[in-house]
């Protein structure tokens, strides 16, 4: 309760603000629609209204406020409109239906999970290489950082095409783009983690004349676990973003990214909003799940 109450308050405040903002955001289109239907609105000219302030428009046409909450193409959908759409596209549709968000969510999720697995694996391997080889550390690390300044959306289509041309299609290209985003936090975290043992812990092994291999399995790897989990949380959220980005050029407009795209293509703002909310919930659940795994694993390791 102590934890949930402030969150609920903030959420309530956000909703209140959101509801309050809806009339101002939607008033212009609403008035145009009402005017078409025969209502008298001030001013009665859409161009004047375009240049007028939303605030004045709402004040002068307060009768239109209810209608701002029921627009079909709102600039800002009201929370209940998003909730209704979410309800309609998750609970009311069969999960196998192409109109079900769960169906699209699963498509995105499968690419995310595969990409996350690839990214994490690659990240760990790279980190091990960096920690064990000075040459790799010095050559690769600066470029790994630079690689993150490249806008992924710009090269995603190229990646898809290049993979396509060597016969890789479907889930894998999306997963690779998703992996591209998730590997970086894992590399950074794991390099830090594998280097976490202090000089004394390393010296202890030296007094036992332990091999590098033993040092890795008995010291570096366990010591890196807290870092690994922390970066997995960042990585999984990044993997989801990657999968969604990859869905734009992947064709077929499937998945949550596809929903956002077609929503934007057909001006279905509500559809974008519900896909957004669904994606955020998905991300939060994935992070939560990793958090749970973290708690269990670290507890079993005696680290808490």
């Amino acid at each position, binding site marked *: 309760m102590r934890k949930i109450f402030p969150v609920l308050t903030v959420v309530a405040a956000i909703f209140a603000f959101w509801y309050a903002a809806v009339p101002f955001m939607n008033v212009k289109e609403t008035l145009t629609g009402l005017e078409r239907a025969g209502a008298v609105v001030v001013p009665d000219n859409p161009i004047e209204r375009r240049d007028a302030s939303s605030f004045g428009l709402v004040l002068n046409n307060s009768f239109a406020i209810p209608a701002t909450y029921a627009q079909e193409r709102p600039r800002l959908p009201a929370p209940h409109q998003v909730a209704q759409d979410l309800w309609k596209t998750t609970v009311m549709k069969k999960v196998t239906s192409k109109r079900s968000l769960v169906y699209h969510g699963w498509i995105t999720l499968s690419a995310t999970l595969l990409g996350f697995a690839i990214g994490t694996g690659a990240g760990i391997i790279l980190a091990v290489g960096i920690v064990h080889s000075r040459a790799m550390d010095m050559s690769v690390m600066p470029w790994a950082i630079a690689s993150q300044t490249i806008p992924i959306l710009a090269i995603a289509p190229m990646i898809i095409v290049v993979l396509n041309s060597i016969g890789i299609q479907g889930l894998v290209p999306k997963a690779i783009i998703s992996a591209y985003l998730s590997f970086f936090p894992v590399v950074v975290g794991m390099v830090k983690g594998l280097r976490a043992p202090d000089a004394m812990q390393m010296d202890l*092994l030296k007094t036992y004349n332990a091999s590098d291999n033993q040092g890795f399995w*008995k010291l570096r790897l366990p*010591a890196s676990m807290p870092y690994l989990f922390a970066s997995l949380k960042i990585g999984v959220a990044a993997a989801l973003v990657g999968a969604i980005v990859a869905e734009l050029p992947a064709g077929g407009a499937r998945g949550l990214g596809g929903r956002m795209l077609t929503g934007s293509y057909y001006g279905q703002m509500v559809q974008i909003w519900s896909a957004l909310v669904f994606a955020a919930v998905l991300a939060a659940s994935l992070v939560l799940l990793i958090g749970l795994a973290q708690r269990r694993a670290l507890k079993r390791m*005696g680290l808490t």
Partner: protein
Amino acid sequence: MVPNANSSVISAKALDLTFQTADAPVHALKDVSLDIAQGDFVSFIGPSGCGKTTFLRCIAGLETPTGGTLTVNGMTADEARRARAYGYVFQAAGLYPWRTIAGNIKLPLEIMGYSKADQNDRVARVLDLVELSDFGAKFPWQLSGGMQQRASIARALAFDADILLMDEPFGALDEIVRDHLNEQLLALWTRTNKTIAFVTHSIPEAVYLSTKIVVMSPRPGRITDVIDSPLPKERPLDIRDTPEFIEIAHRVREGLRAGHEDD
């Protein structure tokens, strides 16, 4: 101090060590010669930065001297390290937090390839030795600082090394706990007849424990005094209020102050 190859377990001759650092080289050890015989309990005392740790690390083969010779069990220090000739106890317990106390003590045994059964035997034996038998399944953070330090000593005792190198093992503990551990360490030393090299900051601790007290002084790190203790092997804590004890302590303090005044 005539070197005697037969009885000397550790023998340093004209040892020199200079660290190359970014700005100026640091002369950490200068012309250090010392012989430690089988069964000795040698304490190193001196102000911070005088090279106590560095000397211990040279013996352990963790640091390579830039001059002089050093033999441990008749080998070079590095060979001795590879032969696992010693157990090393650090200032902080340095137990791995993801292993239980028993698991921590097993660590060197796993690395050295002892059989599973042997590992368990040994863990049980050394846990008993440091009076932690009931705590094998606990994680380090569930124990007090003193208990952790005892576990780390057990870890160094678990395999068959005749030499015990201890770098301020009780530095982080409070005086009462420290007294208690000192008593136990003495008992253990009497029972096992190991050779112990022990670094400390505390004059009473050095005097109470040692058969030989090595006073060092800094810039460059060197030995300024070696005091052979006339105290008997059996030492109750009360011995610290005896005139002999106070006399030796006084001599150590004088030695320290002399070294310090060089600054």
